[in-house]
Each structure stands twice: as structure tokens, then as C-alpha cells.
């Protein structure tokens, strides 16, 4: 389908590492912006992360990782040392031709490099800048570093997460990278919308912690009223049954949630109206909740010999809210996701040995715009094109940058090849 990209003509320079900012800018790349990932050979972690096809990091491993592909889809790569005076000079030439500059350094780093908003606005008065940090650019915690799970913790999400009656548990390893990355994309689109209407730039100071707090807003109101939600695992404050129940096979489960007496009656019918389900204690919302542990046990006995997927379909056809607890293998094989073409089998030309591999897609479809996975950039793949066409550098100037170690297309010679398949992108 021939189509004009939504963000056609929008150009983004993003000095980005790890997860949160790459995830956010990838949305803009998907929408057709030219997103230039500015990389440094001093930080190969993102490219070393894997997973590598069949567990083998190849000769050009830095272009082959699956998680790198997922988080850097449709971008270009400029491997330029912006801390070097010549690198900075070239970067500023690019800034003149760009709409957005992003970074996820700690606050102060861009200023030290002479690349803070004020410096960039002198070069390009309509520039939009976005700095994505753990705690923002102001306030007593501004200098603190973070991992996604430390942000989960500082936001309050972790405290609220845990099995019923148990201690707080790490909510996830990198949910907050995605959650904040989603907020990055929203903020950047707002700024671009604003620029479309007014022609003006904007300085965006985005905090991962605040994104987390915003995501648990009801608990923040409750805290001011002296109430803290109990940890309930997969249980609910008033609904029962509400949780996961064992199924046939090793570590197989089904989630079932009942929100009303009507839904309870549907579940009873779906179970063939066993005698225990007639117990008056289970006849009302309050009764079911008060006796939920007994109820869960009885329901578990019914689910335990059944296949989780077949049971999901049976229950759903009976109007019961239920879902099998899926593994990654289940997801990739799922008929619904496949009918919706959710996964994209991507054949990365920069990782020919891997062949096509499926990656998760976007959870939205737009009727006037089709998102597709076009490319994942090799390290420095677009160095020459960008510096020539946008920054106006001559071949000689570009050669000089290469000779002085400011521009690269391969990691440093002593960069170790990652061992094994690589991690799954956990935040550590």
C-alpha cells in the first residue's frame, strides 16, 4: 500500500541507551518519522543484549540481537561520539535539520556536553527536546540513577504487588521501561502536534517515577485518606472467584473472574451445576468473597483435570470471563493473534544468518495507516548518508571523523563478543 507516512518529514535525533527511550522513539519511527539513533562505541550494551538466533552471537553480533530489533525498529543508526568536539560539531549541524532531540542520560550530562535545550535552541529555535530520566531534572532526587525495577519500587507499584498476605514483590523487571516509553511517545506526539499548529518547539522533562505514580493514581488518593490496599495476588477487593486455578499439565492454569451473581450463575451452568455450587454461602457477592478460599479450592478441583485452552473456550462460550495462562509458545501459536497478524516475521537484512523471526507487533491498528517493520539499523549504517545529506559534510570531512575515532560502523576491537544466547532484556 502506497501511503504518505503520518510523521513524514519529521526528523528525530535520539541519544538513547537501554530500554525506555528506545521504546518510546520506536513509535515515532513506526509512524514514519526519521528517527536517528545516535550511538557510541562506548556503550554496546543494547546491542550485546541478545537474544541471538539459536543462541549464537555471530560475527556481526552487534547487528543481530532480537531485543535490539524489537526496541529499535524502523530507526536509522548514527554511531558518532558526541563527546568529541568534532562529533559535537557534526551533531549540531544535524540539529539544524531536525525537529526533535531526545536523550536519556542523567540530568546534567547534556548540559556538560553543551547539548542541553538552551544550547540546541540557539542552533534551531523550533527544536523540541525530550529528556527521559528516572526522577526528572528538578527536585532532590534528580541526580539518582535507576533501573526499571527501582522505578517500580519508588513509584509505589511494587509495594502494592504481592501474593495475598505476603511481602511486596518486584512487580516486573522492565514494565516501567515500557510504561514510561509509552509516555515518551505520547509526549513527543503532543509536542509534534503543537509544532504542527504553532511552529514552536518545547522542552520536555519526563520522569519515569512520575509515570509510575500516575499509573497507580487511585492508590495515591487512598493514601491521603489513610487507606492502603492489601496485597491480594490475583484476588480482587470484592470479586470472587477471581484468580488463577490449576489445569492439566505442568504449571498450566486458567484465570477466571466473576463480577456479579449473573456471572456466577453462568459459571455454575458451565460447570454442570455441581452440588457444592448450590451452597448458599456462594449465592451472593459478599458470601463468595467471604468464603473465597473454600470456593477457590472447590473450583480448583473442577479445573485441575481440564486443558486450560479448551476450558477457556468452553467458559467464554458460556459467557464466563476466563483466559488460559499463556506462555510465549502459546502466544506465538494463538489463532486470534495470528488472524489479526499481530506478530511480524521480520527478516533482518543485517542479520542474514538469523532468517525471519517473529517479533511482537503494535497493539493498535489504524484504518488510514499501516505500520510495518521495515528495518533495524546496523551500527552506524546511516553515518555517511546523514552526515552528507543532512549535515553537509564532504567525503574528506567524513573520512577525517573516521580516522580520528569519532565515527564508527563496528564496535571497538576489544569489545567482547556476547556469550550464549543473551538475556531476555530484563532490567537487572
Amino acid at each position: 500500500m502506497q501511503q504518505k507516512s503520518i510523521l513524514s518529514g519529521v526528523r528525530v535525533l535520539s541519544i538513547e541507551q537501554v530500554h525506555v527511550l528506545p521504546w518510546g522513539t520506536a513509535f515515532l519511527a513506526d509512524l514514519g518519522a526519521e528517527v536517528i539513533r545516535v550511538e557510541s562505541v562506548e556503550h554496546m550494551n543494547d546491542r550485546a543484549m541478545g537474544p541471538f538466533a539459536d543462541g549464537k552471537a555471530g560475527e556481526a553480533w552487534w547487528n543481530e540481537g532480537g531485543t535490539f530489533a524489537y526496541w529499535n525498529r524502523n530507526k536509522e543508526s548514527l554511531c558518532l561520539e558526541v563527546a568529541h568536539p568534532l562529533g559535537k560539531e557534526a551533531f549540531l549541524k544535524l540539529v539544524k535539520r531536525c525537529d526533535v532531540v531526545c536523550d536519556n542520560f542523567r540530568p546534567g550530562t547534556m548540559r556538560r556536553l553543551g547539548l542541553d535545550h538552551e544550547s540546541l535552541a540557539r542552533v534551531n529555535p523550533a527544536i523540541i527536546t525530550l529528556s527521559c530520566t528516572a526522577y526528572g531534572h528538578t527536585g532532590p532526587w534528580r541526580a539518582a540513577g535507576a533501573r526499571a525495577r527501582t522505578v517500580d519500587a519508588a513509584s509505589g507499584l511494587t509495594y502494592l504487588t504481592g501474593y495475598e498476605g505476603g511481602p511486596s514483590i518486584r512487580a516486573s523487571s522492565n514494565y516501567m521501561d515500557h510504561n514510561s516509553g509509552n509516555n515518551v511517545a505520547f509526549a513527543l506526539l503532543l509536542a509534534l502536534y503543537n509544532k504542527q499548529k504553532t511552529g514552536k518547539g518545547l522542552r520536555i522533562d519526563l520522569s519515569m517515577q512520575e509515570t509510575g505514580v500516575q499509573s497507580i493514581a487511585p492508590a495515591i488518593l487512598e493514601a491521603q485518606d489513610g487507606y492502603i490496599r492489601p496485597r491480594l495476588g490475583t484476588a480482587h477487593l470484592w470479586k470472587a472467584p477471581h484468580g488463577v486455578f490449576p489445569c492439566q499439565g505442568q504449571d498450566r492454569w486458567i484465570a477466571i473472574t466473576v463480577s456479579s451473581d449473573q456471572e456466577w450463575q453462568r459459571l455454575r451452568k458451565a460447570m454442570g451445576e455441581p452440588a457444592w455450587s448450590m451452597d448458599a454461602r456462594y449465592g451472593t457477592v459478599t458470601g463468595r468473597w467471604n468464603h473465597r478460599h473454600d470456593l477457590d479450592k472447590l473450583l480448583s478441583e473442577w479445573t485441575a483435570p481440564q486443558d486450560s485452552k479448551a476450558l477457556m473456550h468452553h467458559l467464554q462460550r458460556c459467557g464466563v470471563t476466563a483466559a488460559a495462562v499463556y506462555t510465549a509458545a502459546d502466544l506465538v501459536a494463538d489463532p486470534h493473534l495470528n488472524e489479526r497478524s499481530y506478530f511480524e516475521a521480520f527478516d533482518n537484512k543485517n542479520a542474514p544468518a538469523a532468517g525471519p523471526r517473529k517479533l511482537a507487533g503494535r497493539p493498535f491498528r489504524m484504518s488510514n495507516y499501516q505500520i510495518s517493520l521495515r528495518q533495524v539499523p546496523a551500527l552506524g549504517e546511516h553515518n555517511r548518508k546523514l552526515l552528507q545529506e543532512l549535515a553537509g559534510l564532504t567525503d574528506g570531512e567524513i573520512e577525517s571523523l573516521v580516522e580520528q575515532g569519532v565515527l564508527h560502523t563496528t564496535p571497538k576491537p576489544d569489545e567482547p563478543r556476547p556469550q550464549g544466547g543473551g538475556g531476555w532484556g530484563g532490567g537487572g
Partner: protein
Amino acid sequence: MQGILSNVKVLELTHSLAGAFCAKLMGDQGANVIKIEPPGRGDGARHEPPFIGGAPHPERSTLFLAYNTNKRGVTLDVGTPSGKELFLRLVKETDVLVESHTPSSLEEMGLEFTALQEVNPRLVLTSITYFGQNGPYTDYHGDDLIAQALGGFLYAVTGLADRPPMGTALYQMEVTAARNAAIATMAALVQQGDTGEGQHIDVSTFEATVSVPGGLIQQYTYLGGVQRRGGGENSVMDGMHLKTLDGEVTLTTAGTGGRAMEAWAEFLGEPAILDPKFTDRRTRTRNWKELYDLVQNKLAQWNNLDLMREATARGLVIGLVQDPVQVATSPHLQERGFLLELDHPEAGRLKYPGPAFLLDGENPSAGGRAAPTLGEHNLEVYCGQLGLSTHELSALAAAGVV
């Protein structure tokens, strides 16, 4: 409230948290949001505990209050002929409609995209459903736990290895679907600004869930590995929660230049953790109980805010496991101007989280409004905006349409 989206009109016809939060994200940036609720009971979220003050009250549910700021509210039964007619008049004037019905129920009401597009060709229709607009599960029932189950989150992410699957608190998959919906809606508004055309956006909460665990899918498609929950349990330096005087903390080995144990030994004043049996992650996990006692004893002498300040000053990276009271009273967030005080006639004065980014140094939601009471803006919208007489409005109210 002035904001980037001050000229954008948003209509919300949802019964899911994702729909409410998506519309709120637009309202937080100044969009003129009208939330439509069924007459009588209103939005289901109004009846979700807990309630400010404890006792059930439809104007005091924290879930409703939190996700409906910066909107006006009207009641309307769009299932009645006169209700539908009023709804279509609102659709005609809006830029965006956020809705959360299954495709079949929307079609039953005659409100499918093609019908709405006839009324308003510029309309951006953002549909947020659990399973999307097509596919074999389209009419299945969903909620946040169902999304976490089917989306891979329960099996792979939060719980402990030797326990049943367990998920995150407070509807994070609804939040994730809402953020994706807001992204797609903003993209559609940018395109609408270029071409004048609207479009239909199909957001699936199930798919939004699959998109969040970092490497779930590629771990399988690249390695054949099926990621499973657990792993941080016995990791004193990388995942466990340790007690402080007034709370909990989780440590990391970041910021130590590869000399994690040296840096932490010095910071805690505990040279015993320099023992070779704690040198790397593998040996630390094997000997975790010993390490736990050593580190825990020292951390127990710190209070949270002092620990954060001193650890940060030495370049160490930690995360305070803050409870919501600590978050709501955080001096850091206070100085950031992140929490905004809003008055509500029933819930009183409370501090609400902002958009989590400052624009040119300012919180863009300052000067906003608390959640609407049920039907609060009926007069303003139906008479002021659509030009109904107060007599007509009373008749609609008597007929149960508003």
C-alpha cells in the same frame, strides 16, 4: 484549562478503565473532554471500592476520581432513540470519540464506525477493547486479570518460581492499553491536521499486554526458550526487598564501575561482604542467606530518605520500595510540582498525579478540574452547547434518557 489540546474535542463512551484513562490523558493536556455515563448508576467505576471516607458512595470511588479528572460529565442512554440522536449531535461536533464496546454491541446500536463517519467524516474513533475489532475472540469477555493471563504477563513476569502465576497491582494492562490508545489517537490527530480525514483505531488490551514484557516473544522465537516467572528471589543485590528503619529498599550493582561489592562494603561499613563467596551474581545467589543477613543488618539502621540521599551521593543506584503514603508525601515529588490539589464536592481536597512530564518546566495540567459528579454538566452541554431548552432537558430526564 489551557493546553496543547485546548482546541481538541473528545467524547468518551466507555465502561473500561483503559477508555477512561485514555480520555483523561487527552484532558490533562487541555482537550475538551465530555464523558458520557448511563443515567442512574453512572460509570461502573463509581461503584468500585475503596471510597474516600470508607463508605460506598458513587462520587467517592478512588478509581473513578483518579481516572476522570479534567473532563466534564453528562448522562445519556444512547440505547434510546432520542438518546442516540443527542449522541450523534455530540459526535458531529467532536474530533475524537473514545469507546470500549465490543464491535457487535456497537453495531447493534447502529453506532459502528461507518455510521459515525457519515455524521462526522473527520472523526477519529478510538476503540479500546480486550480483544480488538476482529478475530475469533472478539466477543470474549475480558478484564485486567484476563489480559495479564492471556498476554503472558502472569506466567512470565511477576510471581515467584515456586508459586502460582501472579500479576501486578492496580490494572496496569488497562493503563498500558490506554497509553497505546493515546499514542494512536495523537498520531491520528496529526494526520487529521494534514489531511482533514478521520479514521478508526482498533486497540486491543490483550495485545497491549503482549507488547510489554521486554523479551518474551523474541526469547521464544530466537532461542525456543519459554520465559517463566521468578529469578530475583534470592538476589540480595539485584531484586530482593530489604528492610530499612521506615520501609524497604531494593539494591542494584549499577553505578559501581564493576566493583559492586567493594562499593557496597564501603558504603555500608561491612567489609565481610568482600568475601570471595559474594564476588559474582552466581556465588551471591548460592550464598544468599549469609549475604542477606550482613546487608540487612546494616540497612536496618537507615531511614529511607537518608539512604536515598547518601547512596545517590556516592553514585550507587537503589530503589526505595515506597508505600503510597510515602509517595503522596514525597519531598521530591512536592518540589517537582507533580501532585496537583483539586477540590471535589464529595471527595474533598486531594492531591492528584500529573502527566509525569513538565513542558517548558511547567506541569501542563495545573488549573485542572476534579472528576465530574454524575450528570454535572448536563445543562451546560445539552442546553449551552446543543441548544436544548431547559424544558426539553427536563422531559429527557423524566423519560430516563439523561
